[in-house]
């Protein structure tokens, strides 16, 4: 968390405070951007843009406690804008949304954050974005549909396909691990 003194300096545009906050939050913010954007360079550019927007619009924020969550939201919005600009959701396939795929918690518990990230990173842009927004950020399908300018059914379809792929990937890895142990 950023202390009050640093926060006030940050609001005045103090470069040292900006550097301190960047050093503290950039690893987390870069990870957020990388979860949404597969290309490392693009993710870094988005992160820089997010920090720039945050530093130049700090007058909208009053509490230093909210800085981290606020910046995270800026990063997510920047990533979504990047996808919208690049029209990543134009060729989305709508599935029968009745076939919900369950990704069991016990499969997940065995994985580290880095492993989960690497599996998410393998997903196509559409699957990854909906999965991130629904499963990690906690948005509803209606909100996701509004944010990405897609239908609710498309959002649900993308999530089902993402879960399906993740489950298959995790099970395959577990199978290899088990056979190695034997």
């Amino acid at each position, binding site marked *: 968390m950023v202390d009050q003194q640093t926060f006030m300096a940050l609001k005045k*545009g103090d*470069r040292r405070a*900006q*550097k301190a906050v*960047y*050093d503290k939050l*950039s*690893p*987390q913010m*870069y*990870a957020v951007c*990388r*979860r949404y954007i597969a290309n490392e360079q693009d993710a*870094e550019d988005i*992160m*820089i843009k997010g*920090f*720039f927007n945050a*530093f*130049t619009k700090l007058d909208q924020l009053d509490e230093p406690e909210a800085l981290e969550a606020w910046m995270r939201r800026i990063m997510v919005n920047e990533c979504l804008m990047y996808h919208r600009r690049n029209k990543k959701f134009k060729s989305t396939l709508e599935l029968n949304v009745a076939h919900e795929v*369950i*990704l*069991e*918690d016990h499969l*997940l518990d065995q*994985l*580290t*954050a*880095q492993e*989960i*990230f690497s599996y998410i990173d393998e997903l196509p842009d559409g699957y990854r974005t909906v999965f991130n927004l*629904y*499963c*990690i*950020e*906690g948005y509803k399908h209606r909100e996701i549909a509004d944010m990405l300018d897609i239908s609710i059914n498309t959002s649900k379809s993308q999530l089902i396909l993402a879960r399906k792929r993740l489950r298959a990937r995790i099970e395959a890895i577990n199978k290899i691990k088990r056979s190695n142990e034997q």
Partner: protein
Amino acid sequence: MSNNHWSEKMDGLQMSPSATAWGKLEDQLDNQEEKQLLLAQFRLRYRMAAASVVLIFFSAAFLLLLTLSNNQADNSKYRQVVVEEAPSPFSARDIYGTSVTVIYEGVQKAALQPKERKNG
């Protein structure tokens, strides 16, 4: 599957951006500061120019009104008042060594006497 479960796991994930990222951000922030400075200077110049135009307009309007109001009738009144209210501090006696009455009598006498013709 709980959403919180994923969130908790992924919140802890940290990845290092490249070493040049801060430099790029700093450049953008510097450019922004320069732009803001230029914008502030432009606004100040614009306001000063606008104030000058307003000042010139009102000065011209004031001078025009003054000229129009300063007509002939007003001038004559002004001169009359000045003559009546500000008499000369010198009397006829101070100037000619005699009173106005004596001068007047002298002028009358001169008018009654036949004029002397100068010879050749």
